[in-house]
């Protein structure tokens, strides 16, 4: 591995950009695939073949805006790539015929250009409202390079951070990372530089490194986006970390649901070994290090560091009390450093730009940028990156485009089952570790779920508890029994059977479980309850006292009705109603037999929007009616 590797890679990249042949970039990360990207790719390939067109197809990861997928960017000779969003299989052949064969972009169909300035009347893609406010440091290559090509990564100055690191002493590397102010992106926000120093200073000749790619928080996909878009960034960070702490072997623990990540990481490590970036004498520095892949097996608790280590060693993934901390006694009793995927992915940047320059992003105490996955009831779903301190309002309303389907915003949930719900009154809070913790929510690993008027907050608390109860490993009693008791109470309340003392019982349990649990899973399990109690107490009271669900989602407390004045008798709902609860003749308003209705809501889904004749009602009204 020498200078020629970078210059060669840059030439390859330039040749791609200056290609005489048309180039089609396809977003084929897991999210793209879920939207049908592979079918679009197949359609493009077969149309190219049937018209004997010589074009090149380059697979890329996700650039972030999942709601635009499948994403296709087409580069005609001499021009920049033009972005087409939500491409269907039917449209694929049109793109081949008109754009690639015809040689001219369909500007009214395209949404932007990947260029420094607007062109052909098309805006820069990165000026799109979802992208413009972002600062893409970690995600800089995602969706732009081929994740299976180490050359593409090198062309983007990849592995220069490692080169810089190897020219320093391990202590200097740690100082650089400490100067960046980088804090762990896996949830707790511990100083990365300090963590490395603890492990470096721990006595022992054999040390290990782990990259936590378990990303178990439901509704979070930032690590996946990075690993599928730019796997080498994470691996480069691992080599730098290993050098700093003095580790000879590293593990990347990949979530079971991420087979594509496994495939990309496997390919990337092969390429690294081939050119001397893994194995013996990395970059001729005398430093030896290798990486092994481990796959998770569907256990959320294995994201917790001590449980993860047990799992890496092939055992049941049970957490252990700390101390001893992994830094002194981790894998096989040896000092072990464990960092989150995004933390690792940030490290090369710190070594390339210098810790002080990195620290200029973000705010004091929470430096740099953070990636978030935006989901739930938000219009623009996807993976984003913003400087620390960015107000949640900007994230939800500017980048996210606000709440979908014209509904009103209720809350945004951060940190998954360990986190909490931030209500609209606090939406101006900036995202930093301390501010979010003060609200009772947490930064977490980056999941942001937007909730609207139709989301019942008591039911959300019940939902998260059903998750933690299901995932509790059962080792310690407060977590095993406590989560079950809390879930039972929440189930009672959502079924309209709660009583006023239930709130007190919940509060008591929350405290016991938080204080008494062995690991973070149990300790943070009360958070969704505590924040909903704090900000949405009125919803609890409505369920308990009035036996009413204000969002009309708790099945026991609501019913569906067909509004006779709106129903045209189109008959769409009658046939589809599985329990046969709907009666009526075509052309005449229909009605629901409440004794048969299972409240599945399919009738509401199929009712034509222009009629909107199916309404959700409080059950108490009905009792009053009778």
């Amino acid at each position, binding site marked *: 591995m020498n200078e020629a590797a970078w210059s060669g890679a840059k030439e390859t990249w330039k040749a791609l950009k200056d290609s005489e042949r048309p180039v089609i970039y396809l977003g084929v990360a*897991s*999210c793209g*695939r*879920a*939207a*049908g990207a592979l079918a679009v790719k197949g359609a493009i390939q077969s149309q190219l073949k049937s018209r004997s067109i010589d074009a090149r197809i380059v697979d890329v990861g996700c650039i972030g805006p*999942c*709601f635009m*997928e499948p994403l296709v960017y087409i580069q005609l000779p001499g021009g920049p790539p033009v972005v087409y969003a939500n491409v269907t299989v039917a449209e694929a052949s049109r793109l081949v015929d008109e754009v690639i064969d015809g040689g001219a972009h369909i500007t009214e169909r395209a949404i932007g250009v990947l260029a420094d300035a607007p062109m052909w009347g098309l805006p820069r893609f990165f000026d799109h409202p979802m992208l413009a406010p972002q600062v893409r440091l970690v995600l800089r290559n995602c969706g732009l390079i081929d994740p299976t090509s180490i050359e593409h990564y090198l062309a983007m100055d990849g592995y220069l951070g490692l080169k810089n690191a190897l020219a320093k002493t391990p202590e200097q590397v740690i100082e650089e990372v400490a100067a960046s102010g980088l804090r762990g992106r896996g949830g707790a926000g511990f100083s990365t530089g300090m963590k490395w120093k603890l492990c470096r200073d721990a006595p022992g000749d054999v040390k290990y490194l782990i990259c936590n790619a378990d*990303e*178990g*928080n*439901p*509704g*979070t*996909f930032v690590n996946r986006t990075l690993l599928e878009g730019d796997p080498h960034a994470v691996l480069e960070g691992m080599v730098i970390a290993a050098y700093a702490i003095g580790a000879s072997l590293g593990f990347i623990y990949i*979530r*079971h*649901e*991420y087979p594509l990540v496994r495939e990309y990481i496997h390919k990337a490590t092969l390429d690294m070994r081939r050119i001397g970036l893994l194995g013996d004498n990395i970059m001729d520095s005398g430093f030896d290090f290798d990486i092994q892949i*481990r*796959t998770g*097996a*569907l256990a*959320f608790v294995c994201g917790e560091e001590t449980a993860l280590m047990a*799992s890496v060693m*092939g*055992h*049941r*993934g049970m957490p252990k009390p700390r101390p001893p901390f992994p830094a002194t006694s981790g894998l096989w009793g040896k000092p072990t450093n464990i960092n989150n995927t995004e933390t690792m992915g940030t490290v090369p940047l710190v070594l390339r730009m210098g810790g002080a320059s990195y620290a200029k992003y973000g705010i004091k105490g929470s430096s740099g940028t953070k990636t978030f*996955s*935006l*989901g*739930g*009831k938000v219009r623009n*779903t*996807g*993976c984003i990156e913003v400087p620390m301190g960015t107000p949640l309002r900007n994230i939800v309303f500017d980048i996210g485009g606000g709440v979908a389907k014209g509904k009103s915003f209720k809350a945004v*949930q951060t940190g*998954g089952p360990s986190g909490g719900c931030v209500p609209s009154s606090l939406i101006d809070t900036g995202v930093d570790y301390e501010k979010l913790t003060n609200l009772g929510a947490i930064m977490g690993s980056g*999941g942001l*779920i*937007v*909730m609207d008027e139709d*989301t019942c907050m008591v039911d*959300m608390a019940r*939902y*998260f508890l059903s*998750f933690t109860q299901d*995932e509790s*490993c059962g080792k310690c009693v407060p977590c095993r029994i406590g989560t079950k008791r809390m879930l039972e109470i929440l189930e009672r309340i959502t079924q309209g059977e709660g009583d006023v003392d239930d709130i007190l019982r919940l509060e008591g349990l929350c405290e016991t479980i938080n204080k008494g649990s062995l690991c973070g899973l149990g300790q943070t399990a009360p958070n969704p309850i505590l924040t909903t109690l704090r900000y949405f107490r009125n919803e609890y009271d409505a369920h308990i006292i009035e036996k009413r669900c204000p969002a009309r989602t708790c099945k026991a407390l609501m019913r569906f009705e067909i509004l006779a004045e709106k129903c045209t008798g189109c008959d769409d709902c009658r046939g*589809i109603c*599985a*329990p046969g609860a709907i009666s009526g003749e075509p052309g005449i308003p229909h009605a629901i037999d409440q004794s048969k209705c*299972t409240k*599945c*809501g*399919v009738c509401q*889904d*199929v009712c034509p929007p222009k009629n909107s004749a199916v309404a959700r009602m409080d059950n108490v009204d009905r009792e009053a009616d009778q």
Partner: protein
Amino acid sequence: MKHAHQNQCLDRTERNCSEDTAKKLSTIFLKYRKDKDDLLSILQDIQDEFGYLSEEAIHLLSKEIRISENEIYGVATFYAIFRFEKPAEHRITVCMGTACYVNGADKILDEAEQKLGIKTGQTTEDGKISIGHVFCNGCCGHAPVVVVDNEVSGGWTPTKLDKTIDKLKEGSP
């Protein structure tokens, strides 16, 4: 229902099946040191190969790496991924992750349960279709997400699932 179909390999008269199993297993064992630390990875490979962990496979593994069957079950049952029975011909897995739940995933799961007359975690009597759920596939931008066999896709509605089940029943996915 869940236990309705028996795995043929357990039938001790079917020796052919065992031979085939043994051959495939030894290929897997070759990849590893005979070490306890590899237990989880080996179990994952076995399930990838056979679709589940049969009693027979666990028995052979136990002899190979000299760990008691009890201990192997101890590890395997900890992880939700492992199945101990032959999987159904078609598997419908509804994502119940937060983004999907907020977008009505529970209604989709209800639809599957009602339509097939089984609960999540169960297989239809004829061994044809099973329903399960996971907490997030990492494709939350396309919620609600359903995995049919191994294909993850987004934008599901109860009605769409209803039609998919009809197609699976007919045998043309």
